């Protein structure tokens, strides 16, 4: 069962990487990278169960959170050309 899951996840990650290399716009690439990160979390979890050591779930948990934070940070950089200040939001309208 775990081997089937890992094979499906590897196929998925290959297709996602293909879109990352292909994607015409920046947002396509970012979407594909975000999707790749989610699949990595699942792959780590399923691999941990396959080898009989579910302790790998700690790594998967941290990876899930970092993946989300990274995506939001890159998106904020696109939107405001800046990561720290909020001053662009005030004169944005």
């Amino acid at each position, binding site marked *: *069962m775990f081997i*089937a*899951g890992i094979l*499906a*996840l590897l*196929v*998925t*990650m290959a*297709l*996602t990487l*293909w*879109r990352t290399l*292909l994607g015409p*716009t920046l*947002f*396509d690439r*970012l*979407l*594909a990278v*975000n*999707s790749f990160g*989610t*699949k990595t*979390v*699942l792959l780590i*979890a*399923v691999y941990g*169960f396959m080898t*009989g050591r*579910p*302790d790998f*779930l*700690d790594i*998967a*948990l941290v990876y*899930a*959170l970092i*993946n*989300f934070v990274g*995506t*939001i940070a890159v*998106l904020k950089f*696109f*939107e405001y050309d800046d990561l720290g200040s909020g001053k662009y939001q005030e004169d*944005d*309208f």
Partner: protein
Amino acid sequence: MFDLLIMAVSWILMIVGCVFVVSGAVGLVRMPDLYTRLHAASLTDTGGTIVIGLALIIQAVFIFDNNMAAIKMGLIVFFTLFTGPTASHALAKTALLCGQVPVDADGKPILDSPEEATLLARSRPADYRHGEDAKRIEDEMDALNKKRRGEG
């Protein structure tokens, strides 16, 4: 008998999750436009994580007899349930704000210009009620609509 039932349920959940995940990736490669790709990828991301996570939780509780692993897997599913849609929403909004115009089924843009996409992304209902510059956004949208009606 009970073990067989547990294995059957987690097999079915795992297969369903694999179908979700692979179909999402195929959609991500085959769809024609950024927003349709976003639809395919984000829905199957969240759904596949939930279903595969349920399969792994069942395995952890009944086969591995490891409740801590089940709790951690539940936390991963819980976080993904929030972070997946949030990231997709932020991505779609930033794409619209940066002037990515959505296209319809025939491949024609549904908005006239990237500037109109930016305006559409900035016009939130809250701003119309409370914001100081709500009037300006409203006027700009009106002018764009008028122009579109005049040309069309």
